[in-house]
């Protein structure tokens, strides 16, 4: 337990220096830019003045932010594994299980802390143009937390596969970006189905789709989205599977005994 506490404190100490920048970027700049760009300007061009459609289009963008934060956390673990071997050192002085649990837990909590205020801040910027008449805020909180869980677990799997930092950008473009586009980041599942039924059927196997479906369902309260309960079960199940896979891969990669 003492090891867990020390390792958690170390992680906190690591980010403390950049806390001011993170708060400004994630609590102010990003919500403003995403809100104005994807929640107002782009939908205004696509559909004219239609707050409900604009909100439907925009709320999926939270997935992009979730994945960016999760990817950053995973890349930091990768840098510590492949650079100064900090991860290996931590494993030697505690145990692989402890280090893995602490890193995963901290990444999920970090992701939740940065992303939780995202939609409320956007609401402040956009006012009535952000359609929240039927919004269930507790469900938004749950969806953001589950989205963080899934994003971190997936980012950990990817970072366990690669051997150095130079591959991290390829990972983003080839293994993350398509999943987000077909994960309802921009367009909801029903529209993908309507446009290309085959793509819709494939998109149903994308676990990220359930994060955006849950968020849309929480914000808009429509029945056209997959039910939040189904989404939660799928997200939790997939996250557990990803965590187990990344545990196995990372253990093998650093040859932990």
């Amino acid at each position, binding site marked *: 337990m003492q090891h867990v506490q020390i390792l958690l404190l170390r992680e906190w100490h690591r980010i403390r220096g*950049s806390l001011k*920048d993170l708060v400004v970027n994630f609590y102010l700049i*990003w919500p403003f*830019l995403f809100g104005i760009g994807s929640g107002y300007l782009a939908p205004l*061009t*696509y559909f004219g003045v239609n707050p409900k459609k604009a909100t439907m289009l925009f709320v999926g963008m939270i997935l992009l932010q979730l994945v960016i934060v999760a990817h950053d956390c995973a890349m930091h673990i990768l840098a510590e594994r492949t650079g100064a071997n900090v991860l290996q050192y931590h494993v030697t002085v505690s145990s692989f299980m402890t280090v893995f649990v602490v890193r995963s837990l901290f990444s999920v909590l970090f992701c939740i802390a940065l992303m939780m205020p995202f939609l409320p801040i956007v609401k402040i910027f956009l006012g009535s143009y952000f359609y929240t008449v039927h919004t269930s805020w507790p469900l938004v909180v749950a969806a953001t937390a589950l989205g963080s869980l899934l994003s971190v677990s997936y980012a950990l799997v990817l970072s366990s596969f690669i051997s150095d930092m130079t591959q991290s950008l390829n990972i983003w473009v080839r293994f993350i970006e398509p999943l987000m586009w077909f994960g309802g980041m921009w367009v909801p599942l029903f529209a993908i189905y309507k*446009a290309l039924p085959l793509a819709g059927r494939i998109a149903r196997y994308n676990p990220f789709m359930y994060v955006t479906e849950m968020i849309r369902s929480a914000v808009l309260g429509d029945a056209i989205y997959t039910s939040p309960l189904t989404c939660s079960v799928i997200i939790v199940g997939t996250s557990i599977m990803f965590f187990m896979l990344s545990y196995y891969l990372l253990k093998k990669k650093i040859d932990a005994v």
Partner: protein
Amino acid sequence: MSFKHISVFFLREIHVFKKRFLKTMIDGLVVTSMHLLSLKYFLPAMGMNPEWQTPLYLGNILSLCFVSSYIRGIDITRDIDGSNFLQYQCALPGKGLYALYAYVFGFTLHMVALVAPILGFGLLFLNGVCSYPGSLLGLFFMVLLVSIFFAFLLLTLSIFCRPDAYLDNVWPRILGPLFVFGGVFYTWKRIALLTPFLAKFFLLSPVLYCSEGLRGALLTDADYISLPVCITVLVLSIMILWYLMKRALKHRIDYVEGV
């Protein structure tokens, strides 16, 4: 410094280009395919008028410029603090600034070679073989100008910012606002009709003249900011960035010109 020495800088950039191009092209095609599927199928299924597909695609293509030049900038900023290669190049006898000209050339070459074919592929995918009121030559000229602009922009930022600041803050604080207010996902006149005040504010973003210039070159001029205005603003922006880049070089590596 002789021509032979200067040409080495440029040959190095060509070598880097050859080494990285295929990987960047594959990445560019992956990203563009997603944009194209959205514009051609998904957004119209949600009610977007298909007439917006081409102008929005011409704006979307700028995201490739942002991403590819940003990635190249990571190497430059890391190099200045790490292997000190730029310091070495600038310390060579004669005009060390030729190294910077070569970097601009490298960035531009990379972006033109990436954007031009992907732009053509996207236009074919959206509309098939059809004629446009503008000219393809004009479009190519705008692609070149846009690439030079992005080369100067990201090179200046990568020289000015240390790696940590570049990775943490350049996207949210500089590129993000330029991107959002740059007409990538909308056309300026459409926004000017609906929110005139905001639209005036967007005129401050030079990226807006990139997206509107690309649209103006290929489609009709009347619906977009006029092409001569876009070209003038971009040329002026490039000149300002050139000045800022030299200042950034002095600030970051204590470079003394002409020594």
